[in-house]
């Protein structure tokens, strides 16, 4: 196992906020299939944490372990001073919004939302009031008497949210809840979900494979790869300071520069710059927007290289341009200028913007 120097980072949550849930060395295997290996993660009170990963990375399994639908093969889950992993789901103060909403088809919207309070045998007057409040909060009061089959996907989503929040859980788990919605509605729900989370102050653990969704909504992102946490930090940090090559590639676009450090000098093919790094092989992530098309005199501390444009793709406000430089080096550059294919350009970036990252070797 490669040790990453951010290994301690998963245990630090939001600054100042006390820890709500603590996942300690959790592993899970299904038969011979290792789904999670040694995952440790702390979730702070009131935090919006996203577990991000490709399909098969184990993110849903991790969520199901927190909810209690799966028991970890080894490791523990704690909430407050209470061990959670040996308790059945109905004793945990954790609620889940399921990917397919899982609304009870034989109940109305209102009865669905009231379910948790009914089984907890709360007084009927309190149930009525809290259900009305919850439906109001997700703007579904008008559909209180409808059956779930009679409302749209987006509306079912809101009802599922109300049904979970009405119980005032300490932690809300959301399993790719937006994946079934179309792009417009999804973007709208991202904003609503985030503001709802701030309003109710409950910690959210949100599972998604969509890195954009993760960066837009989260306080922190826990990036999971093949059952191991790759990096856990804020969206800004994970983008600008990726710990590994995998993180750098998974979050946004990047150029990976592989090279050699010797005597305070880094050489990556035709590129070279001064850096205080120990001698040996090095790997850098250089974001496309950190590279400019240069003109005039070279800025101090900047690295320059010439190349010819091989491809350019329109990406809304900016373009992604692929430039083939000398020595088989191909760089992706974010630019607002159109350059004809084949034209010669000079590229420039600051050496400090090239972030050294760990290699991400194949797992399993």
């Amino acid at each position, binding site marked *: 196992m490669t040790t990453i120097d951010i290994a301690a980072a998963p245990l630090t949550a939001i600054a100042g906020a006390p820890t709500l849930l603590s996942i300690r060395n959790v592993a899970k295997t299904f038969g011979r299939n290792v789904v999670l290996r040694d995952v440790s993660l702390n979730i702070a009170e009131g935090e919006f944490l996203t577990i991000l990963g490709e399909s098969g990375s184990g993110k849903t399994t991790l969520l199901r372990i927190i909810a209690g639908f799966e028991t970890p093969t080894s490791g523990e889950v704690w909430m407050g001073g209470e061990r959670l992993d040996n308790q059945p*789901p*109905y004793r945990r103060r954790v609620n889940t919004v399921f990917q397919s909403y899982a609304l009870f088809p034989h109940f109305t919207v209102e009865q669905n939302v009231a379910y948790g309070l009914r089984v907890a045998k709360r007084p009927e007057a309190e149930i009525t009031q809290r259900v009305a409040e919850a439906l109001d909060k997700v703007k579904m009061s008008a559909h209180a008497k409808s059956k779930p089959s009679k409302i749209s996907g987006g509306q079912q989503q809101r009802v599922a949210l109300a049904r979970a929040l009405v119980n005032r859980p300490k932690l809300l788990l959301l399993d790719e809840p937006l994946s079934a919605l179309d792009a417009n509605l999804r973007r709208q729900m991202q904003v609503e979900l985030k503001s709802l989370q701030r309003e109710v102050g409950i910690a959210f653990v949100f599972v998604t494979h969509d890195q954009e969704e993760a960066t837009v909504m989260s306080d922190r992102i826990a990036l999971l790869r093949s059952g191991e946490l790759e990096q856990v930090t804020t969206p800004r940090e994970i983008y600008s300071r990726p710990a590994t090559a995998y993180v750098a590639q998974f979050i946004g676009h990047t150029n990976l520069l592989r090279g050699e450090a010797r005597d305070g000098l880094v050489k990556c093919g035709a590129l070279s710059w001064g850096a205080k790094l120990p001698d040996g092989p090095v790997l850098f992530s250089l974001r496309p927007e950190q590279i400019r098309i240069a003109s005039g005199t070279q800025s101090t501390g900047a690295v320059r290289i010439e190349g010819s444009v091989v491809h350019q793709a329109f990406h809304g406000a900016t373009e992604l341009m692929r430039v083939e430089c000398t020595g088989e080096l191909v760089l992706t550059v974010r630019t607002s200028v159109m350059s004809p294919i084949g034209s010669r350009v000079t590229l420039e970036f600051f050496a400090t913007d090239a972030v050294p990252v760990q290699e991400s070797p194949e797992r399993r």
Partner: protein
Amino acid sequence: MFSRTYRLVVTVPPLLWISMFLLLPYLLMFCYSFWSVSAAQTIVHVWNLDNYKELALKTVYWQTLLRSMWIAARVMLFSLLLGYPLAYFLSFYAGKRKDLLYQLVIIPLWVSYLVRAYAWKTILGSDGVLNTLLQYAHLTKHPLDFLLYSPFAVVLTLTHIYTPFTILPIYAALEHIPRNLVEASHDLGATPAQTFWKVIFPLSIPGVFAGATFAFVLSLGDFLAPLLLGGPSGIMISNIVVSLFGAAYNWPLGAAISLCTLVLVVSLLFFSERLEKKWSFS
């Protein structure tokens, strides 16, 4: 779309089949029920309501029909009580053994009805397995004679025979319940018992109605079990119909009884279908 010829080839044979072997016999039966038998044992083709009058006035027919319904109702109840837990276990807890256990439920259906009814005869008879065992264990001195040739024997045998027919639709209904609903229920704090009564059972009701209808309707029309195991006190309506069409040679009266039973069964089926629809949410 399909060609005209294709549609004809596909639809005409089954329609012919149904007309020849279902609608026509029913129509004949309908006609017979309004005819009568002469003293010389010939069918008199004169339209009258005498058969229905006789049915209304003679209590033996009423009583037998009511007894048949009572036996069928008990068979239905016991089949559900036995079948539901088994179907529930199969669907939710059988795990890898699910397919095997499902086959074990089906296999008895391959064994001839007659063989199974006779098996009960050897078990329940006065020299039967059960009585021998009870006497051997000194629980009784004399063989218990209420075991065989009684409504009890009929209910027991029919329950044994028709329980698989209740298990299958209940199992199908339970299999259709999305498992994430069960998880959602647990997630919202419901104990397994609460989850069963509030989520699983309500969603399986269409299967329960279908299974109950199978057990009731099939038992109501049964004549072999009462014939073999029922004795005089276990006679059911079909036995009367059989004897009227056979030894008694009163086809018109037999047809009238059959028609009444048919109306009863069809209205039951109609009713149960309405209920099944009302309780299905997919």
